């Protein structure tokens, strides 16, 4: 089972490393991010898709972007295409 990307962890117990966090993203018409948490995206370094567990009742379909923000910060964000929401998984 894949825990929902927004699942919270219980204090004191083991928790996931790299747990996705909700992100505020505005996208271009082609789906690539334009603003991530109100910071402008200056470059998209890489883009990839992860489609997994499609045979289960909890399929995973994500479109990832490795981006550089206006402040020089690196971030990895993805759009969860199952729930239609954006999450960040590194940076921001």
């Amino acid at each position, binding site marked *: *089972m*894949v*825990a929902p*990307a927004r*699942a919270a*962890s*219980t*204090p*004191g*117990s*083991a*928790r*996931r*490393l*790299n*747990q*996705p966090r909700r992100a505020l993203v505005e996208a271009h018409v082609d789906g690539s991010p334009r603003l991530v948490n109100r910071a402008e995206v200056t470059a998209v370094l890489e883009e990839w898709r*992860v489609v*997994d567990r499609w045979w289960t009742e909890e399929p*995973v379909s994500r479109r990832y972007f490795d981006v550089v923000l206006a402040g020089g910060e690196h971030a990895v964000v993805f759009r969860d295409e199952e729930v239609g929401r954006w999450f960040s*998984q590194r940076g921001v």
Partner: protein
Amino acid sequence: MRLGEALATCPSLQLVDPDPAAAEEAWEGIVRRLEDAGIAVDPAAPGCAYFETSGVERLYGGLEPALRRALRAVGPDWDARAGAAKRRFAALAAANVARSGQALVVADEHAREFLAPLPLNLLPLQARQQQELADLGITRLGELAGLPGGAVAERLGPDGRRAWSLARGGSSRRVRGRKPPAELFETLEFPEAVGNELTLRRSLGVLLDRLLARPERGGRALRKLALSARLVGGGSWRRTVTLRDATAESARLRAALGPKLLDLPAPAVALTLEVLILSESVGSQLELVQPEGAELREHLREGLRQVSAGTGSGSVCTVVEVAPWSRLPEQRALLVPRDD
């Protein structure tokens, strides 16, 4: 009765997963309540305990008040009953015969008469041996006790000889109360059920490190441990391990406990490691030359202790890889808090 037969007889039958950890916990609660009442208990098996009343008879005003106090200590949720006799087996038989909440006292001079009409299933005999005796027309303890001991031993072997001895009242060994167990345990809850051996072994390593770092241990080595798990979909699993030589070496403890994880019947949602018995002494042979890196590890541990003291419990974590092959980054590793 077979499961299919039971379901055919009673279609609304609900099957309950075995929960040995919960049963053990409930039983431990009962034993502790008896100990709180001043009774030194020798727990024989979950649901059956022996104790001597001589130490508490003056406290409670006699044998029967002491037994009533013991029944009250067990609590109303359990169908408790007590039996008292000079010998263990007679006391066990009396408790089996007593009604719920009743304490039955059997005087030693009447023990044989009391045991005589009772059925053979009170004896620790296999079903095959019970059947063999029944085929010979022996169905009561008195009938078995009346046979020559040598003949019973010849027919049924050492188990039969022991049963014959019990049917005549058994020996009057002293009851020795247990040592109260050490209250040292650590639990790791997983965000989702874990079934792969690698993750479970790493989690066990984390639990061991945490247990060994507990100040209550006072430098003493571990003699007996219990490893238990809460299983996905309900139920639990528990194994106890008694070490031939008490040790506090993480590697030896891992080697002793690790193979037990292979017996897990289903993925676990939580793993618990509990110390049941600690050794008495704290002395151990020191090493002449410390292994390479030991000093560095000690410095690192001290640094982590300082960070933890400054930032609070749970702020220092270990990364435990659980599924490094996963395509989803959050599935690859867990952050496990450490408070050593």
